[in-house]
């Protein structure tokens, strides 16, 4: 009798413990889902703001007004665009491979959303402070290529096919310098945890210690998201939108969303790895973080408004003959430097010297090249006749 009582009491206790754990786990999971939803809403707001900023900024660069009609200063233009995309017909061409065609946007978007689980916005302000945060982000950022490839192949369209192949070659090539430069930063911080990397930049941000690495990371990151100087895989005048050519309506909107989220991710990674993250005087940390990230985004848009598109051979040459060797040299130099424990300013001097030599070399080459066409004023042509 007593034994039965003890056993049933133990069983009851176990049951209570089990239910408590279940409820606690469920509550925690609910909290996590709430955080994830908040992150999704935040990212959607960021994308809307980026679309507006880019159109307005490019318009100003080209001496136009940019969006003006919808809302004050055209602020509601991206909202109107998003509403339009949802209301548009989602055409599925007859020849496509339906599975690939339909799942490709998801496969591009999901990794670019999953990344944000590990991105810290301030001290402790992160969904999950992963110890392998940098590795996690670098690893997931490559998965999107599969989505693009699937989109291009699944469309059964020549332009889509060509664009997706180009994207595979380009994104894969520029992934190498991104990884190596991220490694250099991890080496200096002695950690792969993004919060710790930011904390390691307390005296001086790594942009000062390693200007060359910042330059390499920004260039390779731009190519990685296919922003304009490096956008041959979805260039309108060459492959008509490349892998996205057959998409319309909500499917196309998801591609667009992923693209802008990735652009913002590059800005955020530059902020975290090189600009000292949320560190700054006066303002609250989150504001500093967003300020820096939007500054980098502004640079990215400026690039788009300034530089002409690269050809594919130039693009691959820049990736494999310039960025990959330079990033490796930088890695080896940094490792030697850290191994012997020399002061940080020496590293920034070396980095600056390499960057200056690079700039001078490019300048020499550009100056030595003779222009293919000489422009002659009309007056001289008439007098020569």
């Amino acid at each position, binding site marked *: 009798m007593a034994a039965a009582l003890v056993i049933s009491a133990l069983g009851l206790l176990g049951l209570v413990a089990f239910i408590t754990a279940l409820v606690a786990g469920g509550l925690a999971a609910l909290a*996590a889902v709430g955080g994830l939803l908040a992150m999704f809403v935040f990212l959607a707001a960021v994308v809307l703001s980026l679309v507006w900023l880019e159109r307005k900024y490019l318009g100003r660069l080209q001496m136009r007004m940019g969006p003006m009609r919808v809302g004050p200063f055209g602020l509601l233009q991206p909202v109107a665009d998003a509403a339009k995309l949802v209301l548009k*017909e989602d055409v599925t061409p007859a020849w496509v491979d339906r599975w690939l065609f339909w799942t490709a946007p998801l496969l591009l978007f999901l990794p670019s959303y999953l990344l944000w689980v590990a991105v810290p916005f301030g001290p402790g302000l992160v969904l999950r402070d992963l110890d392998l945060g940098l590795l996690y982000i670098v690893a997931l950022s490559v998965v999107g290529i599969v989505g693009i490839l699937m989109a291009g192949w699944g469309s059964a369209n020549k332009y*889509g096919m060509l664009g997706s192949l180009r994207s595979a070659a380009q994104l894969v090539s520029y992934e190498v310098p991104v990884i190596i430069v991220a490694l250099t930063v991890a080496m200096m911080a002695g950690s792969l945890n993004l919060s710790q990397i930011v904390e390691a930049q307390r005296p001086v941000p790594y942009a000062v210690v390693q200007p060359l690495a910042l330059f390499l990371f920004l260039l390779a990151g731009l190519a990685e998201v296919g922003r304009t100087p490096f956008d041959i895989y979805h260039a309108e005048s060459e492959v008509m939108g490349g892998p996205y050519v057959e998409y319309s309506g909500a499917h196309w909107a998801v591609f667009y969303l992923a693209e802008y989220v990735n652009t913002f991710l590059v800005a955020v990674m530059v902020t975290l790895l090189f600009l000292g993250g949320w560190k700054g005087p006066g303002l609250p940390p989150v504001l500093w973080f967003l300020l820096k990230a939007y500054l980098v985004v502004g640079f990215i848009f400026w690039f788009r408004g300034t530089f002409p598109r690269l050809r594919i051979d130039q693009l691959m040459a820049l990736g*494999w003959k310039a960025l990959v060797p330079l990033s490796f040299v930088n890695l080896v130099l940094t490792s030697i430097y850290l191994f012997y424990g020399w002061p940080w300013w020496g590293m920034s001097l070396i980095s600056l010297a390499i960057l200056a030599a690079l700039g001078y070399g490019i300048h020499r080459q550009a100056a030595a090249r003779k222009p293919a066409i000489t422009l002659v004023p009309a007056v001289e042509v008439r007098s020569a006749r």
Partner: protein
Amino acid sequence: MPQGVTANYLVVFLAAVVGFLAIALMFAANYLLAPRRASPLKGLPVECGIPPVPFAWTQINIRYYAFAILFLIFDVEAVFLFPWAVLFLKAAPVVFYEMLVFLGILLFGLVYGWRKGMLVWR
């Protein structure tokens, strides 16, 4: 939610579910709100009005494979570099020199490919 590796990657899994549902919601809205009118011409691949022949799934130039293989080499090597980068200051000096040798071999491979014209896009 408790810390730990399992809990961390449980959140990643939850994020996948949340992201999937959000996108599915958007597709559903599109499905319900947008007009749908099928027509044989709409079903053709876009080719600026030119009849889409031959079919798009054809042979692919070999140079794409060459770059994919190069990437694979460097990516696999990065897997070895990640733990090394974090730990080489705490480990024995031989770890540091060994990785320099490894990087040297790798860069020699890149220079060899460069000299052989593997990096030229033609």
